[in-house]
């Protein structure tokens, strides 16, 4: 489903070339639960941006469902983000003055073919999938706790039923207890609904929840192991 070939990313800042990713290649199959682990500065965030079709590599190729993403235009990349990828961020990134339901529906606004009733039905299905209590659905998102907010964000990532969920340090702003709830949610989505889940984290304990761990350091993959 995902195939990266010799991905290189070099940032140019004031004439200096800073290589962030050097020759990264790997494949991810549909339905995998994978963690990309590395310390800060290892290049894992850059890798996530490339996997999420937010950024283009300096060289190399990235195939998503057989399509080379970097042959696509900006609008086509936006289309990929909307249809195939769901993002979950460390800092949740919810719209603070909007209700939970509205937040979950944001990705659907950009698809005019979907009716209002369909939007609501999809949003409710996604919120049920992450197990958020029904009485919270009409609350403003900034009235929720961190764990609840992150589950709203996961519901938002699910709403278009994307193949891939990309989660960037999803437990980074949560205590261990609520973090565990969020990780359980990923586990459940992977097992029961067959979503491909990619966790980006620096935390070994978080990475251990996944069934495959790619370790990255200084822009190269240093280990790629599967658990049974």
């Amino acid at each position, binding site marked *: 489903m995902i195939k990266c070939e010799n991905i290189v990313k070099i940032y140019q800042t004031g004439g200096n070339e800073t290589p962030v990713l050097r020759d990264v290649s790997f494949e991810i199959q549909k339905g995998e639960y994978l963690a990309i682990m590395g310390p800060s500065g290892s290049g894992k965030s850059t890798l996530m*941006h490339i996997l*999420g079709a*937010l*950024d283009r590599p300096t060289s190399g190729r990235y195939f998503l469902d057989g399509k080379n993403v970097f042959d696509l235009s*900006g*609008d086509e990349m*936006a*289309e990929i*983000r*909307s*249809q195939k990828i769901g*993002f979950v*961020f460390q800092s949740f*990134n919810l*719209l603070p*003055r909007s209700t939970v339901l509205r937040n979950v529906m*944001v*990705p659907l*606004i*950009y*698809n005019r073919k979907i009716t209002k009733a369909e939007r609501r039905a999809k949003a409710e299905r996604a919120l049920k999938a992450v197990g958020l209590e029904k009485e919270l659905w009409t609350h403003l998102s900034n009235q929720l706790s961190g764990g609840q907010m992150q589950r709203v964000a996961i519901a*938002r990532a699910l709403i*278009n039923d994307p193949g891939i969920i990309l989660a960037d340090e999803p437990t980074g702003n949560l205590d261990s207890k609520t973090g565990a709830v969020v990780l359980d949610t990923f586990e459940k989505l992977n097992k029961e609904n067959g979503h491909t889940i990619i966790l980006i984290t620096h935390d070994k304990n978080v990475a251990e929840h996944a069934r495959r761990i790619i370790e990255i350091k200084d822009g190269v993959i240093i280990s790629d192991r599967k658990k049974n």
Partner: protein
Amino acid sequence: MSSNKSRSALTILGIVIGIASVIALISVGQGASQGITSRIESLGTNLLVVMPGSQRQSGNIVRGGMGSSQSLTLEDADAIRQGIADIIAVAPTVSSRKQVTVKGQNTNTSIYGIDGNYFGIKNIEMDLGSAITGQQIQSRAKVAILGPTTRDDLFGEGVDPTGQKIRIGGQEFSVIGVTKAKGGTGFGSADDLIYIPLTAAQQYVTGNQSVSNINIQVSSADLMSFVQAQVQSLLLERHRISDETKADFSIMNQADMLSAMSSVTDTLTLLLAAIAGISLLVGGIGIMNMMLTTVTERTREIGLRKSLGAKNHDISNQFLAESVSLTFIGGVIGVIVGWAAAWLISKFGSMTTSVTSWSIFLSVGIAALVGIVFGYYPASRAAKLDPIDALRYQ
């Protein structure tokens, strides 16, 4: 937009002031224009006026001012009346300015020598007494009808002067009536003059057989130019002039006068609208300023929306819609405020105002346009943000 109400309200206020001043100032211009039009029309409808003198601007012979020559006669008026169809009435007049005295009071005013058709053509009605009769015209009777302003000057306001004597240029005339006020002041006012029989005016006031002008009422507005051409050729023939440019008379068309006057008021309206437009421009810059601030504040949100699949035009449309709805709301409120201002001006000021539907549509349209123009730059800036940078923005 709703999240920062006081900022939005202040920005809208800029548009409200701009649109309101457009509406109010255009209404002043339109009011002036309608006032002038109705005043010209009150002088009579479908009127041609033949005046002595020439329209010619250049030439090797020095001429006096227009109207100073004595080329038009009563016979010309008769010839027009008999020779040209499509005419309702012809009224020659003799006019002159004279000192008029009565029992120690005196005034300098216009003396109009008129025939029986004049009041009909000019829509003049009697307030007191009776109009000049054909009998009085034939007999060169020394009778006079006063305009209301002249009556006020000579006898005092509201006094009935009929039967009193006035002296015009050494001759004694008896007052037989007063006309109704037509409004208007200053030069050419129909209220500050004295009407006497045409024949009496020729004999006692000007002392010659010429007439000062010939008023011709045409039967319909469509025939004005046609009749004007006919009168032109008839008089050229009578005066034995072959070259049109050397004509010793000129014909003024009421329609021409109307278009000349309305071009003046149109210019006035345009000028006022331009002044109001400046405040609209300032309001538009206010919108742009606020939208730029909003874009900066919401950088993270923009990054998020892009990462969730929003295309560049989705983002720019969102911000454009926001600025257009701000200016549209401002435009609607501005129309109401401007309307109220126009009403107050006509109620408490001395000017008449007129709010027209086109000025309303125009200004609401301009308001929306201001939103698009001044919202475009902030919106495109928002759309061009790099989603990764925008997500990192704190």
